[in-house]
């Protein structure tokens, strides 16, 4: 469990985190999303003590993250694995030795049969048993990230921190890494905190997400909630193409969930006996469910009728 309570941090005069409060439950996959420079990576670094913060507190599994108490922090870091955008593997060590490295830092003998079994088991789990003695330079980006994941798990952490872990990978490879993270979350029961600027990542694996802008949490909730009725800044981040909409009439955006079974658009046209045009639409895939959004353009005089109808059938809407 990770509790972030009113955390603020500044670099000199620059306030990078402003009064951030987030609670992350055990075994959850939690997303922190925002543009680069929003402070999300800094927040992640504060969670495992790579960075200090000035006020508020971060409590991980009941222990406060405190850079002054080096010994306690040290022990805490052992329970948190971390993976990075640029993988950060040691170029001169092969896959096996890279995975073994954190054990060496903790004085664990890596020559014992148990240690060997553990390291090889993790390498097998990430699907790289054929590359056990390859050097990082012989591996592709996706394979390097898999090695980094195995390395992050070697100390049996309770939490896995992912800092833009798929940002350097192409979409197909990203998918594979996300599947692996989900598998780790399910099978090993590890809490995963994902920092990313890619909406795709959050949509595919996160149960909850916080949207951060200028060091502040602007919205928090399930990813589909963020998408279905986005707050102004979130919408800008999602870059919906609403600026291409017609200037005349009223533009209404409708949000459909997978519980919407009725053919609402055609029903509405028939029932209200009006005509309108469909301007823009999008389907989004959230883990197992699909959410859609549609922008229609109606005449000024039909506005109230249409909105009343939408309320009646229970479709979320927004006038643009």
């Amino acid at each position, binding site marked *: 469990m990770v509790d972030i309570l009113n955390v603020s941090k500044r670099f000199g005069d620059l306030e990078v985190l402003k009064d951030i409060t987030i609670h992350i439950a055990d075994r959850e996959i939690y997303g922190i999303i925002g543009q680069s420079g929003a402070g999300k990576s800094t927040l992640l670094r504060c969670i495992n003590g790579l960075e200090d913060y000035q006020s508020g507190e971060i409590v991980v599994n009941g222990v406060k993250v405190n850079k002054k108490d080096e010994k306690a922090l040290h022990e805490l870091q052992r329970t948190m694995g971390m993976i*990075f955008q640029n993988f*950060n593997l*040691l170029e001169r060590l092969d896959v096996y030795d890279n995975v073994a490295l*954190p054990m060496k830092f*903790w004085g664990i003998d890596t020559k014992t049969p148990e240690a060997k079994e553990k390291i090889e088991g993790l390498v097998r789990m990430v699907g790289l048993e054929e590359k056990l003695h390859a050097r990082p330079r012989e591996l592709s980006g996706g394979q390097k990230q898999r090695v980094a994941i195995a390395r992050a798990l070697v100390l049996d952490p309770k939490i896995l921190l992912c800092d833009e872990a798929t940002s350097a990978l192409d979409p197909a490879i990203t998918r594979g890494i996300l599947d692996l993270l989900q598998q780790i979350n399910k099978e090993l029961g590890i809490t995963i905190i994902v920092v990313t600027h890619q909406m795709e990542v959050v949509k595919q694996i996160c149960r909850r997400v916080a949207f951060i802008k200028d060091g502040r949490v602007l919205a928090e909730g399930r990813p589909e909630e963020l998408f279905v009725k986005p707050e102004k800044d979130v919408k800008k981040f999602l870059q919906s193409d609403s600026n291409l909409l017609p200037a005349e009439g009223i533009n209404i955006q409708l949000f459909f969930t997978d519980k919407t079974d009725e053919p609402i658009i055609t029903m509405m046209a028939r029932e209200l006996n009006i005509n309108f045009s469909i301007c823009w639409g999008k389907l989004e895939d959230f883990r197992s469910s699909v959410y859609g959004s549609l922008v229609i353009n109606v005449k000024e005089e039909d506005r109230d009728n249409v909105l009343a109808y939408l309320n009646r059938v229970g479709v979320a809407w927004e006038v643009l």
Partner: protein
Amino acid sequence: MLDMIFAAFRETLYMVFWSTIFSILLGVIPAVILTLTAPDGLKPNKAIYEALSLVVNIFRSFPFIILLVILIPFTRFIVGKAIGTTAMIVPLTISAVPYVARLFENSLRETDPGVIEAARSFGASDAQIITRVYFKESVPRLVNNVIMLVISLIGYSAMAGTVGGGGVGDVAIRYGYQRYNTSYLVVCSLILIVFVQLVQMLGNYLYKKLS
């Protein structure tokens, strides 16, 4: 002539070998301190970094021949005498220490900062990061540095004649240059050229093999 030159070559090897060893042992310490206290280091400390950096620069800018003379009392204190091949190792080492410090510092600091951050995230101590990350990742670059060091020490050892230190360079100057004996000059130069070439080839081979 050849016997004499071979004996001199053995002296050169002796001086270069020991001064290489000692200067690495002594140069590693300031190199590590510079790496740690540098702005991008694990324990950034501007005052220590700048002060040590200045000392390194001062020693590096001394002309070797002057250092050699200045150090005579110190050499006598360490070795017991100020002339001879063994005595030569002292000024060679002293002149090479700041050189090693700077070369090693540059090589260590080339280590990918991301890798260092990863090590920190797993709870590695500073000492572990120095040995298991900085040094481990820098081995090919450090080997390159040692090769450069050996080659420059071969060059400096030619001045050993000043203190009766012997060596190939000394023979080349005294017999070849000062006595107008071209064949000495040619043979000595050839030996040094071949030797430096071999050292460089060995270095290139090791660099490839290690990286």
